[in-house]
């Protein structure tokens, strides 16, 4: 079975025909060409496919595209605005929050989901929010630091 879905992907309204069984990660990667969301474990265990659905983090590899009909989807590709990196992207770049880079899109989107609801998270809150995201380079210290510095940079910029 197929159906028409209306999605807002990174600010762009799209209407598309999808199979009922199509997963969101496959839709984004294969149909939209947005390959930032990664297929790591492909089973909801590693967080590399994390995107935001209506502002909340979701695992795109265990989400049916048809089940998010009408939703606003944000991926790593939509984070930089007018050629400027987002606060999290800049912080990951400047503080070595990225090593091999495979987990980075998922890490940044999960962190973005946290900062949307909590602009000044504690270290424990960051650890909890990123608890479902694996980094096999094991660069967790720098990742947590990057999120803290992004939160601080955003707070300073809005003062």
């Amino acid at each position: 079975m197929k159906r028409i879905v209306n999605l807002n992907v990174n600010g762009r309204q799209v209407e598309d025909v999808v199979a009922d069984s199509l997963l969101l990660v496959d839709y984004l990667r294969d149909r939209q060409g947005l390959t930032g969301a990664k297929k790591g474990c492909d089973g909801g265990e590693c967080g590399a496919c994390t995107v935001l659905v209506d502002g909340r983090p979701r695992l795109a590899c265990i989400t049916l595209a048809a089940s998010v009909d009408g939703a606003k989807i944000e991926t790593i590709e939509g984070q930089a605005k007018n050629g400027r990196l987002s606060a999290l992207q800049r912080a990951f770049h400047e503080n070595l929050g990225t090593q091999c880079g495979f987990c980075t899109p998922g890490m940044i989107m999960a962190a973005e989901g946290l900062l949307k609801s909590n602009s000044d998270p504690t270290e424990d809150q960051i650890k909890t929010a990123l608890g479902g995201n694996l980094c096999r380079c094991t660069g967790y210290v720098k990742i947590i630091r990057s999120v803290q510095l992004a939160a601080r940079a955003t707070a300073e910029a809005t003062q």
Partner: protein
Amino acid sequence: MSEVMPDFQLARPTTLDEAVVALATPEARIIAGGTDLNVQLRMGLAAPATLVDLSLISALKTLESSTSGTRIGAGVTLADLASDERVAAYYPAITEAAALVAGPTHREVATLGGNLCLDTRCLYYNQSHWWRKSNDYCLKYQGDICHVAPKGNRCRAAYSGDLAPALMVHDARLEIIGPDGIRQVMLADFYREDGADYIDLKPGEMVTAAVLPPPKGPSGYRKIRVRGAVDFPLAGVAVEAEETKDGKRFTIALTGTNSCPIMVDMPDVLTDDPNAFFANLNKAVQKAVSPQRTTTIAPHYRRLSIAAMAARLARELV
């Protein structure tokens, strides 16, 4: 894993009545958050003709609390359940259990109903299709032998929901809707010790809510798991401590060690000799459980761990 999804039709009812009609179609299955079922579909562990998506039914997402008790809709997400202040005040075991299910991103969409009905798990079952085929499948699905207990006649897969014991110590009932109307069942009676047939849900039925009486006393939930931030319980325990005229009485429920969540029979109240009492409690839990080789972690370790956790948690609640 990278296996393809099977073909199915997705039904998206917006009311309970529509959901019951959709569920009455042949080979229909419920999907709520999909955090477990979508993984199973990829592994070839289910091939439904229709998936009935409950996520648009607002009637399932209400959480009501009053002096006479609390009613939690089956569609309430675990993230919402874990952050609800009323639940935290009256039923701390439920808050703690909800916060310890899987990872934060799973909890955003995973639901109470999905966790209560969570499929049993086993080393020989939660594997890709080619893995299971090369092992001649297993008793739970597509095969004839339980590889965990080949001489036995039932599936030994372990029930691994975290919420069930936390709700059971608080005497929860389930509301179930189906073709024959609405019925209620005590949560403790909803499960049975058979990994292949572990819940009392007839074709076409679905859980709509859990109903809790006012709490009898404080409670808590503890679990052990392989990966601290994201995992099913190797063993989990909920304890409620009730003050009676004879002394403190503990209600204990366990998960992860059997094919269903189980209550531990604890007839005694806390005596003047707490060390002896908690040693007995530890022994009673060890005796009640029967962990099998369903995970990579040794059954004996899980038996000792769950007993130790139960005794420690009971002490904390005194």
